[in-house]
């Protein structure tokens, strides 16, 4: 049996909404401890890693682990039907090979999604020697990306002992965002070694799309290393890793 219920559908909607721009299909592992999912985008530039413990749900019952192949685009469309404040239920219909999605608010509504076959490939945990930790208000990053987008396709993240910066430079001009220690939006700055790395703006924007602008995101950086971006979702976390652009090889 696979059955889960959360009082606010928004949590799951945010998760799916953040992932759907990067991956179309995903194999969700429903384990007795919670839901896990790990997948790369088709170009293998980004990795999505979701860990939503059973505690994130009001009701959660999974007797034995099951892998459910889900088309995220379809699921996102179904979830777009949730009304604000709706309760969300998910239940596996093994006979029909479907996932039932129930919204409970002004009325009780049921939608169902066919499950798909996905080659389940266990992805390794990347080993990345990050040298800096930055916790920052998401809205700031979203603004920095929108600025950078005006001038080019890539943005550089720079961090040193006292500040975090996003810089972009292209034919159309430059953009520069800076957060200094003590700034309210910079919740934490812990730097072992200054670092800089360049990333594709489209990917970053897709990752930041689902998150609320006042939420805190945890960023891990290292020079010419992937960036790790963690969002807290209820009692779980949604993690993105994005490989850098490396200018000279």
């Amino acid at each position: 049996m696979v059955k889960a219920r959360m009082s606010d559908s928004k949590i799951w909607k945010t998760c799916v909404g953040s992932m759907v721009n990067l991956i179309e299909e995903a194999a969700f592992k429903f384990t007795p401890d919670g839901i896990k999912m790990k997948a790369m985008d088709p170009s293998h530039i980004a990795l999505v890693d979701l860990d939503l413990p059973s505690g994130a749900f009001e009701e959660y019952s999974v007797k034995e682990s099951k892998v459910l192949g889900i088309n995220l685009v379809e699921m996102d469309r179904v979830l777009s039907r949730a009304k604000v404040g709706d309760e969300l239920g998910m239940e596996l219909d093994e006979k029909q090979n479907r996932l039932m999605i129930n919204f409970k608010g002004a009325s009780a509504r049921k939608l169902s999604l066919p499950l798909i076959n996905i080659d389940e490939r266990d992805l390794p945990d990347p080993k990345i020697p990050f040298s800096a930790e930055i916790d920052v208000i998401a809205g700031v990053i979203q603004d920095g990306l929108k600025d950078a987008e005006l001038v080019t396709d890539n943005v550089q993240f720079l961090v040193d002992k006292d500040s975090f910066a996003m810089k972009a430079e292209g034919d159309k001009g430059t953009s520069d965002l800076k957060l200094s220690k003590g700034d309210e939006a910079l919740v934490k700055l812990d730097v072992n070694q200054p670092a800089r790395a360049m990333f594709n703006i489209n990917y970053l924007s897709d990752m930041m799309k689902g998150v609320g602008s006042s939420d805190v995101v945890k960023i891990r950086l290292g020079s010419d290393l992937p960036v790790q971006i963690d969002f807290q979702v209820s009692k779980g976390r949604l993690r993105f890793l994005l490989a850098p652009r490396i200018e000279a090889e």
Partner: protein
Amino acid sequence: MGVQLGDLVTKQKVELEELQGKVVAIDAMNFLYQFLSIIRQRDGELLRDSKGRITSHLSGLFYRTSNFIEAGIRPIYVFDGKPPILKLRTVRKRKQARAAAAAEWKKALEEGRVEDARKYAQRAGRVDETVVDQSKKLLDCMGVPCVQAPGEGEAQASHMLLRGDAWAVASQDFDSLLFGAPTLLRNLAITGRRKLPGKDVFVHVSPEVIKLDEFLRSLEIKREQLVDIGILIGTDYNEGIKGIGPKKALELVKKHGSMEEILKTEIGKKFEVDPLEVRKIFLTPDTTDKYEIKWGEPDPERIKSFLCGEHDFSEERVQSGIDKLVSGAAKRNQSSIEKWFG
């Protein structure tokens, strides 16, 4: 052409986008040959400019390569040098086959058999010096590196893989596996929506990956034995034994262990050239470490003056190809997350 391993091989389909960031050493002669065979008018005639000069190879090279580059692939075209002496006979035979096909083609055209004409025309395609020189010039304008092999292009390409400079050899032939290439990529030149020969039916062709180690493991043989199988079936350097196909060859090699042992049997007497000499071509090929691989920016002005100015290509279509080259060049420095998988 090349060694026919067809039935034995285990392949894995991939999509173009999964090849993002991968360096692919392309068997240039094989690609040009494919372009000259496939890129034809309906009656089998090659594409030509207003002066009657053949442009099928330029069309294939430009549009297909710009698709690879847009997908983030890093192509290197590896050109043949001097063929091994044992290949001369094959070269002569191919010439005869082409001449025969050209005659049939003409006849079919005269008699109005369009599909037949197309079939024979494809067999009449040839890669000559002009085709090679023009191709190198175009690739240079596109910012795509070319490597000149001292001997066989596939041998040089395989050598570049073994040195860690490329991920796969791209060719329709299987010979690179015999040259020791760890990864072979097939169907790259014909990826996409393609017409089935002789029918008005279209299919979607995806690239196929063949891993040498998996392939050898599945057959439970060593690479030297794969070479021996090739020699039994026939290669570009020897005829092969009549009546021996891939399955029979595998059986023989497994039973006897090596070519040396097979030579002691009746079959040993049937070779027209020394199989051990052929084996040497595959195991110790003529290759070089002197090559430079650098992907540059495309030069739109030179591309336009060459393709549109000299060879009457459509400005609009060439511009869309250039756009792909530019966007691909911009993506080139993107690394893959797999690089950090332990």
